[in-house]
């Protein structure tokens, strides 16, 4: 019997967002989408920064980040001293249509952005300029509507597909009515917005027509179609979407409030048609590159900078998959735009490139799916399709039209193509600089701050300062521990008053944290919050600091405010979880940590904390699973290995204990266990307990004068033992040449003050405000520093209780 072919239909809807779709599905307005969601899996697709569509859709089609695929920004250098609309020319790596061609699969690729000029793949390609009715700056009429070269492969399909195009002039009033029910009330001559809507509808219809035609008339294994209309409709009309935004004109709101809904419904109707054209053996995947704010997170103003409208984009797009072997009615977590190509390859049983930044979404499958890997598709020596050649003349006219489209959408500034050479040169320099900035952002998004900084320092110009560049320079300087550089730029920013005071204070707080100046950090964040009480970033930073100094209620207040404003903020949920964990309120902690990873799956610290919480709840097996997840995300954290060793010991899995011990040996060189905390009765009793159990603890908290001893370069140089007591005020001088496990004994300042007074032969009850102030300051500084060190393995202990004692022993032992 002939094996049925498993086809894949991949649909891209730029900017599609669950918030709107969920409401429309609930109201029965998107039945096709609902049928997919009910019978398949759904999830959020994390976008990349910067959330600019050509970069994202190329990451989607290649599985790598923009700094590797080379498609940067909306426009690019044409190699002849000019600019052109972003194209296929600069893509440095293979796209999925090339990989499928290499393996003999046939693809239809329609309107993918960017895909002009098309490539000679096994199958058919229609570029993203197919629907364009402009030639240069002129609009071509229906009867002489040419098609630019490089738009269709194979060329033989040109006549067949050209006929299917829908011209914006074909979109009559009645067709616009579902989007603007009161269209008749508008003066079309004065208000061009109906023309814009007609154009969006025409373009989407044209793309849809080409897609259905190719699906019907061509043999195919994969059909991939991309629609930009939801993004365009949203940029134009989301500001009128209900509920009415403050300070909007009521009349305009009434006129245009249905446009975005109309756009989604229209796409659902197109989807319905596509679904009717496929059989049950075809897998359908729908993706969007980013979301779009549709609620209170809609920005009141669009910044007047290039790509300013991208501020309206939300960080998560959509992912839906339905087909044979795919789970039904379930949600998946942790998907990213980088995962689309690896997942497609897995669906075709083709190997995933180890050099890809994304991963196959194996959690969409009913049964475990084996994934094959190769080092790189770039090394596969098979023909995958070449760019078709295009004449200079056609290229020029096409580019000008495409550039004008980008100007119309607000993504790039008005061109000065008719102006003097000098102006053109300036425009070109600006474009190149802007693209370099996007490249730097892409490096930052991939955690490559050094590379970003190198670019940013080259493009930054203090005579014409751009706040976006300056912010990233300061942040990347902090990330690469170049605090001097960060301070130098912050000084410049403050002197020239380039950013809001709140933002500058936040940056100063971050620098202070890096320099172990917890007090300044706290002061700066509190000051920043005063001038901007709603700023999410400040609240998160402040919440984390409060958690570090065990002001747990204050921490929760900060994070709760964030959740109120942004219910999808994973960091806020994680922060609340940490506060509950510190209070030993494990069930609450677990609840919040789970909420955090549901919102951002790739969050190793949250998975680590889930593991820690479950371990403390004696859920050993579940804790092991969580630590294993954390380990796959961050294999360099020694503390994860230690937990896994301890837990496997508890369940007598000696093989696993040995395995993780061996792994841990490769991660650490020398290790010290530090006992610290305020020098009160609890600290003394913890040290006594350890000594009574046979551990040698070097150092003595009763020698309180040591607290004020001058700092050594290597504070542990004189210590011979593995376990040492170190006063809190010296903690921040620990050198990175050792690995540390830290036991922090929590005690309250007043008890410690009394204890110290009694030790110094003062009356126990004598109140010593200077001592208390000193202790508070010391405790805050130490805890803030500890809170900032990702590699420290910290064990907090409040009371000496039997079960806690055993955990402590297990924590400190070799």
């Amino acid at each position: 019997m002939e094996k049925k072919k498993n086809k894949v239909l991949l649909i891209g809807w730029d900017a599609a967002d669950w918030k709107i779709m969920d409401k429309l599905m609930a109201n029965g307005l998107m039945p096709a989408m609902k049928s997919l969601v009910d019978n398949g899996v759904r999830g959020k697709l994390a976008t990349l920064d910067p959330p600019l569509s050509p970069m994202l859709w190329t990451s989607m089609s290649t599985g790598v980040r923009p700094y590797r695929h080379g498609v940067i920004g909306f426009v690019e250098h044409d190699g002849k001293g000019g600019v052109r609309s972003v194209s296929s020319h600069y893509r440095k790596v293979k796209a999925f249509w090339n990989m499928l061609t290499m393996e003999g699969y046939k693809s239809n690729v329609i309107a993918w952005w960017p895909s002009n000029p098309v490539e000679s793949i096994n199958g058919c390609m229609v570029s993203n300029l197919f629907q364009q009715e402009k030639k240069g700056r002129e609009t071509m009429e229906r009867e002489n509507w040419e098609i630019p070269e490089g738009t269709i492969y194979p060329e033989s399909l040109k006549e067949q597909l050209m006929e299917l195009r829908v011209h914006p002039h074909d979109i009559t009033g009645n067709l616009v009515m579902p989007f603007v029910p009161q269209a008749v009330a508008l003066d079309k001559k004065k208000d061009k917005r109906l023309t814009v809507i007609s154009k969006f509808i025409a373009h989407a219809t044209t793309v849809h027509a080409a897609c259905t035609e190719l699906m019907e008339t061509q043999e195919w294994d994969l059909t991939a179609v991309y629609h930009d209309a939801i993004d365009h409709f949203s940029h134009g009309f989301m500001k009128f979407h209900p509920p009415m935004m403050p300070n909007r004109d009521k009349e305009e709101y009434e006129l245009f409030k249905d446009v975005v809904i109309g756009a989604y419904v229209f796409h659902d109707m197109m989807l319905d048609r596509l679904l009717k054209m496929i059989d049950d053996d075809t897998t359908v995947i729908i993706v969007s590159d980013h979301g779009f704010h549709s609620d209170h997170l809609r920005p009141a103003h669009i910044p007047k900078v290039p790509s300013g409208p991208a501020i309206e984009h939300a960080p998560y797009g959509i992912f839906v998959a339905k087909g044979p072997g795919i789970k039904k009615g379930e949600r998946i977590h942790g998907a990213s735009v980088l995962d689309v190509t690896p997942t497609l390859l897995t669906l075709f049983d083709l190997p995933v490139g180890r050099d890809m930044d994304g991963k196959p979404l194996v959690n969409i499958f009913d049964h475990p799916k084996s994934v094959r890997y190769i080092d790189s598709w770039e090394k596969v020596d098979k023909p995958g399709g070449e760019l078709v050649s295009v004449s200079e003349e056609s290229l020029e006219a096409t580019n000008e039209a495409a550039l004008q489209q980008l100007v119309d959408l607000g993504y790039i500034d008005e061109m000065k193509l008719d102006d003097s050479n000098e102006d053109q040169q300036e425009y070109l320099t600006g474009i190149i600089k802007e693209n370099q900035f996007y490249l730097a952002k892409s490096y930052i998004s991939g955690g490559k701050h050094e590379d970003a900084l190198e670019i940013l320092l080259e493009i930054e110009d203090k005579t014409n300062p751009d706040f976006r560049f300056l912010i990233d320079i300061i942040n990347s300087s902090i990330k690469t521990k170049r605090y001097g550089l960060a301070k130098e730029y912050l000084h410049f920013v403050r002197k020239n008053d380039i950013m809001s005071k709140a933002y500058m204070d936040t940056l100063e707080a971050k620098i202070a944290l890096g320099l172990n100046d917890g007090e300044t950090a706290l002061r700066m964040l509190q000051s920043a919050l005063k001038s901007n009480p709603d700023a999410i970033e400040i609240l998160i930073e402040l919440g984390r600091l409060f958690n570090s100094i065990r002001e747990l209620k204050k921490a929760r207040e900060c994070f709760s405010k964030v959740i109120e404003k942004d219910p999808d903020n994973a960091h806020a949920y994680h922060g609340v979880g940490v506060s509950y964990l510190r209070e030993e309120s494990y069930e609450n902690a677990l609840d919040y940590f789970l909420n955090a990873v549901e919102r951002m799956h790739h969050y190793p610290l949250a998975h680590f904390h889930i593991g820690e919480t479950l371990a403390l709840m004696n859920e050993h097996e579940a804790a092991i699973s969580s630590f294993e997840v954390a380990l796959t995300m961050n294999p360099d954290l020694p503390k994860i290995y230690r937990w896994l060793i301890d837990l496997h010991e508890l369940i007598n899995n000696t093989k696993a204990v040995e395995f993780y011990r061996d792994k841990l040996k490769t991660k650490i060189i020398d290790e010290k266990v530090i006992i610290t905390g305020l020098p009160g009765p609890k600290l003394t009793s913890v040290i006594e307990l350890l000594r009574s159990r046979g551990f040698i603890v070097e150092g003595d908290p009763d020698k309180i004068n040591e607290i004020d001893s001058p700092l050594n370069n290597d504070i542990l140089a004189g210590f011979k033992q593995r376990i040492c007591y170190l006063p809190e005020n010296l903690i921040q001088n620990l050198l990175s040449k050792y690995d540390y496990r830290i036991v922090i004994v929590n005690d309250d300042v007043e008890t410690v003050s009394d204890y110290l007074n009694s030790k110094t032969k003062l009356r126990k009850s004598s109140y010593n405000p200077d001592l208390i102030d000193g202790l508070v300051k010391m405790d805050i500084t130490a805890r803030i520093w500890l809170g900032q060190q990702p590699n420290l393995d910290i064990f907090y202990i409040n009371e000496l209780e039997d079960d806690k004692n055993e955990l402590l022993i297990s924590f400190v032992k070799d």
Partner: protein
Amino acid sequence: MSEIIVVTGLPRSGTSLMMQIFDRSGTPILSDGIRERDDNNPEGYYELEAVKGIVKDNSFLKDAEGKVVKIVAPLPIFLDTKYKYKVVFMRREMDEVLRSQEKMLVKDQTSEREKFRTIYEFHLKKTYKYFVDNNIPFIDIMYSDLIKDPETEINKLIEFCGLGSSVEDLSVVVKPELYRNRK
């Protein structure tokens, strides 16, 4: 095909001093004398104007075989790998480099010192990476070591480049009074 000796390093790291040493050794120098000697480099710069355009045109390298050419970091990353090279990498304490540059430019750049420090760090890193990636042999000569103990450093140089001169003869070039911008 005889190799090209490249003297590199950040501007004001002692690259001109190293060129003088090579000049003294009798190794042919590829320079054009366009940049004239001044108070900052009383013995001259030994530079080639064409090096400035290396990003777009490195064809001058065909005249550099068997000679020494000064190419400041990070410009060596635009070398043509079809030629063979040996590289002398001049290094100097970054603070001294920055102060020396400021003095030369008669410009107070203290408010941008960290920026330039970082940019130069990147330039050095990029240049070293290029040499390593392309298997180009290089030696580091610390400017301060060269001034303090010329014999030892010049000995290293003679050995690395296979120079025919004696250590004593070449050490004459190094005049401690040139080491003037140190604090």
